């Protein structure tokens, strides 16, 4: 009697074991089993571009049947330039960079984002008599030329009732700004991290700062013909980045450590900055508003010969992201 | 002086038995009265005038047990012995002795044995 029961128990355990194993296999079988495709990515080698590097480090590209070569650049512009020159299939850069090229190059396509938040602040020397925003009138403010920051500074001033002609803009590279403000070559700077962090850390109480906006899209750029020829690769690329996005959500500390080591930041800086990041892959309606506003600004500034704002709807390639994560596509269609 | 003869009453339904017992005992100098039934023993004789009463047990009218019980009821000092064909177990005899039976003798009996036992019963 006991023997019979024992046999039944063993049989059930085996069946369950198999069932479970089969189920796990089903889960795992998401691994791509087709031919491997090669992609070259021109990425920025700093925190904003983390998604790409994490995707590589965690083997998501490999899992999705992609052989990805990452070329690192110091700025989004440099990456975009390299991409436009044909040195990469995809690049990561700021939305503003894209807008700057969008007038001439109509074959650019945006397939998603890698980051959607960047805090910019206006930092000013107290000893220059700046204690409230209005004190900025007549002061010298350093900003990167033709950048998203310049645009954003304009918005900031407008919101605070200051006309563009009431301040003196000094075009500097972000890396030059610390010295400039330290040496009193400028009275204030409008900049983002890590430059922002360094300046505030260096000058401490001698400066005052105001939040200057955080709306920001660090986008994935590709070309129309590439996307037409490689829709599946694009899709898998997006998928890998989405997996990296999930990985960061679930393993924040580990991802943070990886970024710290990969981009060679100090722990103190990481602690300050990591939670301020938004590493998400999306395509949303507000992008149009942002791009179009920047385009109008460029037209107004005379940075381009075109008089009409490009129809950015044509520049968005939805399909890759829509296939993998439709809820990440917020574009009205 | 004439010795007073001891008087014996014998109750038995068998005439021959009565006769031989009378012969044997009278030869020894006893006076023997023979009665054929228990009823007669109770009605027709004066029990007090006897020194010894011999009873048979198996009688048609009244059994020896019965008779013995009645006799004892009248007077418990009567000397009674059973003379019977029946075998009485030791335990029964012990009980009877408690009730007053002096002895019992089985029939058929030896002449000498009978005399000896009767004399013994009379002397107690």
């Amino acid at each position, binding site marked *: 009697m006991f023997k019979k029961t024992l046999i039944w128990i063993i049989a059930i355990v085996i069946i369950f074991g198999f069932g479970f194993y089969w189920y796990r296999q089903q889960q795992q079988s998401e691994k791509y089993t087709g031919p491997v495709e090669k992609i070259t990515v021109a990425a920025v080698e700093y925190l904003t571009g983390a998604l790409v590097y994490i995707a590589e480090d965690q083997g998501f590209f490999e899992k999705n049947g992609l052989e990805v070569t990452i070329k690192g650049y110091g700025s989004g512009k440099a990456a975009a330039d390299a991409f436009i020159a044909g040195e990469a299939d995809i690049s990561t850069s700021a939305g503003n960079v894209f807008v700057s090229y969008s007038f001439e190059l109509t074959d650019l396509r945006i397939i998603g984002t890698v980051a959607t938040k960047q805090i910019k602040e206006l930092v000013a020397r107290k000893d220059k008599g700046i204690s409230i925003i209005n004190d900025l009138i007549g002061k010298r403010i350093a900003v990167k030329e033709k950048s998203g920051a310049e645009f954003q500074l304009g918005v900031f001033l407008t919101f605070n009732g200051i006309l563009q002609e009431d301040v003196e803009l000094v075009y500097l590279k972000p890396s030059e700004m610390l010295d400039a403000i330290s040496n009193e070559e400028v009275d204030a700077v409008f900049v983002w991290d890590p430059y922002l962090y360094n300046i505030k850390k260096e000058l401490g109480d001698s400066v005052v700062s105001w939040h200057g906006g955080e709306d920001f899209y660090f986008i994935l750029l590709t070309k129309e013909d590439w996307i037409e020829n490689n829709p599946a690769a694009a899709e898998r690329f997006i998928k890998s980045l989405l997996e990296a996005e999930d990985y960061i959500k679930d393993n924040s500390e580990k991802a943070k450590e990886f970024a710290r080591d990969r981009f060679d930041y100090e722990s103190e800086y990481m602690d300050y900055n990591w939670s301020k990041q938004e590493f998400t892959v999306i395509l949303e*309606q507000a992008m*149009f*508003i942002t791009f*179009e506003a920047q385009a109008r600004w460029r037209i107004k500034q005379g940075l381009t010969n075109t008089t*009409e*704002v490009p*129809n*950015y*709807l044509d520049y968005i390639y939805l399909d890759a992201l829509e296939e993998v994560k439709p809820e990440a596509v917020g*574009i*009205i*269609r | 002086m004439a010795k007073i003869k001891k008087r014996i009453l014998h109750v038995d339904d*068998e005439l*021959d*038995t009565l*006769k*031989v*017992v009378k*012969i*044997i005992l009278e*030869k020894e100098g006893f006076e023997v009265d023979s009665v054929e039934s228990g009823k007669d023993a109770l009605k027709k004789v004066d029990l007090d005038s006897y020194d010894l009463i011999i009873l048979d047990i*198996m009688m048609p009218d009244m059994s020896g047990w019965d008779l013995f019980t009645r006799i004892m009821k009248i007077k418990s000092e009567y000397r009674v012995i059973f003379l019977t*064909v*029946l075998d009485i*177990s*030791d*335990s029964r005899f012990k009980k009877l002795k408690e009730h007053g039976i002096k002895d019992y003798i089985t*029939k*058929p*009996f*030896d*002449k*000498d044995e009978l005399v000896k036992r009767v004399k013994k019963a009379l002397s107690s």
Partner: protein
Amino acid sequence: MKVKTRLYISAIISIGLVGMLVFGVVFTSNRIAEEIREYELLHDIQIATSELNLVLYEYLMHRETRMEQQWNLKYDSIIETLRESEEELEKRREREEEEIELLESIGVNFITIGDLFAQVSANYKETQNLIQEETSQKKIDTAMLLEERLVAQLLIISQSIFTDTCKIVHKALDDAAETQELARNLTLISVLIIIVISATTTLFVVRSISKPLDKLIKGTEIIGKGNLKHRIDIKAKDEIGNLAISFNDMSRKLTKSYSLLEKKIEELKELDKLKDDFLNTTTHELKTPLIPIRSQTQLLLSDDYGKLNKEQKEAVEMIFRNENQMERLVNDILDITKLQSKKLRLTLKKTTFAEIVTVAVKNVKNVAKQKNILLVLEPMLEMPEISIDKQRILQVLGNLLSNALKFTPEKGKIVIGVKKKKDDLVVNIKDTGVGMDKKTLKRLFTPFFQAESGLKRKYAGTGLGLSICKRIIEAHNGKIWAESLGQGRGSTFIFTLPIKKPNKH
């Protein structure tokens, strides 16, 4: 109805009820799924409508192609969804009247705004052209006024559409809530019905089985305890009923058997009583004549009737001898009859066996002395106490010893030995007498057997002694037998008695 059938039926009813419940659940689930689908579609329309409006506002701000393009894309997609919803709701016309009405009104409004938007867009382009071509201000103003009116109308109807979508979504939710309530009520009622029906069914079936079963159990208990007259009262014609019938049959038969047995026992008791009476009467009748014979012979022999001459004396002696033989025979026959009728009751008492043997030997000392036979009693060491009928065992010993003495010539030897062998006491009586051959040994213990037969008998006896001994020893659960090396070479008589208590008869 058979028990089996009842159980199957109640099982089927239970399954049926569960099936009913499952059906109810499935039915309401399907309804709810429909309602959810409906809600999803309508909710999609609602969201799409607000997206459409978002793009409209963007368009009204900047009048750029991108917005126009998006508005048209969205518009087309909504029209498509409206059609889908209409199809979906048509399936359930009666229930969804209100929704269908609302949907129709939304549909009509959509067509209107489609037109309006096209007009607004065309008019704007026209106005721009007029401005570029530097047409008269009046014309421009008119165009711009038209623009204003068109846009106002567009916005109003867009708003209205949105309000309608909210209403319709609400209605869909209400429907779903209604269905949910219906589902809940149905489930409750179903569960109630199921409980009632299954409880009733179970009760009925269980009681229909357990009540008679209880009766059966009680009944069998009563019968088992001995009351065979008891009849199990189960009237049902099912398995239990049949069992009860069988039981009643059985107890009826048992009662019959028992009363038969009782009758037989009564008869046997009667027989026994008759035997007893016979025994007592026979004892009396046989012994009574012997009394006078004995007494008179004794009187004659003791010269109480005068001296007898030689002839007379010899004659009377012969009579006396035969009277004695007669007495012996009568006693032995009565004895063996008692033994045979199992009227023999052993009075068991714990006794030291040594005592009895000593007494038995003492009893025959004189006879042995007369014949000059040596009696040797072997030392009896460590004799355990044994439960026996003293009188009867003495009888046995007496019998065996007198036999030994009888059959041993003068100057012979008789050895008596008692030993403990395992669980038995073993008694030997060995003599140096005439011995026996095999034939004799075989028949030794049979009643009336005498070692010699016929008139030339040298040794007097009844022939019953040994069979009486056998009876007595066997009544004690012992064994008795004899051994001899042959004629003239002596014999040994052996009997065993179990030391443990023998069975009482």
